[in-house]
């Protein structure tokens, strides 16, 4: 079992989060360093994800590491019936760290218990995606200059949105006020509202989405409302155009407001928003590289002082 693996953001204390953000900040100053020279990073994507994989691979490459891996599970021995444990044990012979995405929940946790090298969870089913949360936190930290006492508005699919659940839990250390904006069918599940109460996190729920409601937001985190998630198609038709952000809606918002989206963006952010300086979703993706550089170094035992 390797304690240095990153399986879920819940394992990070407040101090650890701030430490990792500081590390990401150092990497943003200079992302091209040889600090991982001689290391091999394996990206094992049992489930496809171009964005996350490219982000991790860029992070590794810019730090001088070499990358091996696969992104099509049909081409791997898993399709021949090899167990996950055997695959992990085999790849541990070749790589110093394994970044894995798997369609089954708990896969990364299990891998971290059997692998002799650190595991970085790049997404396990509908469960955790800690590197996304780290880059979301870094984006908030960069644009707001702090994580404390912010008004964070989560919009769209709050029921199935893995990234919003994870962000909610990570922010518990920082006294946020959350605003949940979602259609009735996709509202924030009860277990997370209970989580908020237990952790003294203030929250307000809305079903409307308009310029008045978002006027006090510091962060507007947009997610896609997917047709497939609805059991009632008439309900979907009724709400599909409500949770769309248009440029006009941003006129009365705070100057420090930034719009985040885990991407891919479909129609929930209108294209006329892209030129607004408050649109931050593409820089957010770039922050992913720095956050993932910090993660790769941390699991390999490289400390902040080693990179300053």
């Amino acid at each position, binding site marked *: 079992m390797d304690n240095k693996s990153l399986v*879920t953001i819940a394992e990070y204390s407040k101090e650890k989060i701030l430490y990792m953000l500081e590390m990401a900040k150092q990497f943003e100053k200079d992302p091209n360093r040889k600090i991982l020279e001689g290391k091999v990073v394996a990206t094992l994507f049992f489930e496809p994800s171009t964005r996350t994989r490219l982000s991790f691979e860029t992070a590794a490459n810019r730090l001088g590491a070499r990358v091996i891996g696969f992104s099509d599970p049909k081409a791997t021995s898993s399709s021949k019936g090899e*167990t*996950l*444990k055997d695959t992990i044990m085999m790849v541990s012979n070749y790589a110093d760290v394994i970044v894995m995405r*798997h*369609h*089954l*929940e*708990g*896969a990364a*946790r*299990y891998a971290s218990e059997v692998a002799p090298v650190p595991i970085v969870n790049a997404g*396990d*089913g*509908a*469960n*955790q995606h800690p590197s996304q949360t780290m880059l979301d936190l870094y984006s908030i930290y960069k644009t707001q200059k702090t994580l404390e006492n912010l008004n964070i508005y989560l919009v769209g699919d709050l029921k199935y949105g893995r990234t919003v659940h994870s962000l909610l839990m990570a922010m518990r250390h920082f006294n946020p006020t959350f605003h949940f904006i979602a259609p009735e069918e996709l509202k924030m599940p009860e*277990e997370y509202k209970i989580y908020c109460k237990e952790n003294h996190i203030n929250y307000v729920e809305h079903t409307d989405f308009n310029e008045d409601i978002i006027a006090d937001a510091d962060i507007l985190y947009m997610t896609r409302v997917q047709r497939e998630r609805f059991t009632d198609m008439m309900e979907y038709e009724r709400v599909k155009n409500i949770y769309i952000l248009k440029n006009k809606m941003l006129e009365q918002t705070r100057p420090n407001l930034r719009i985040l989206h885990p991407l891919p963006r479909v129609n929930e952010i209108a294209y006329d928003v892209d030129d607004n300086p408050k649109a931050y979703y593409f820089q957010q993706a770039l922050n992913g590289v720095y956050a993932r550089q910090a993660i790769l170094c941390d699991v390999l035992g490289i400390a902040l002082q080693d990179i300053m």
Partner: protein
Amino acid sequence: MNKNKQALQVAALKNGTVIDHIPSEKLFTVVSLLGLEHMGNNITIGFNLESKKLGKKGIIKIADKFFCDEEINRISVVAPHVKLNIIRDYAVIEKKEVYMPDELRGIVKCANPKCITNNEPMSTLFHVTDKDNGIIKCHYCEKEQKKEEIVIL
């Protein structure tokens, strides 16, 4: 007279453990949970016996076997109110109850079909997050289940 005949049905133990007040419908699950079918000891199993408390109960007497807490607490998942009598030289030297441990290893199946434990040769592991309400959480997929809904492996 009838009561004596019923008492004779389940013979006295010289040394060993008696597990009493097992709800009848849980008896064979308890046998399986303790792995009794793999033991060589002298074992007496009573099924559908009369009980003032439960109506019908099961009872297990295992000769020359003494369980450690970890072994016996596995029963708490299906039969939390059993009573144990530890016997030495035909005398009850200790009475015990079972209690819900903090972890359940290899006993409960995860109800999530997308959990790694249902798709890979490995043991399950649950953390008991709420003993009063009987809520357990899978160590791997992190989904919670109620005690009443669980399936024993």
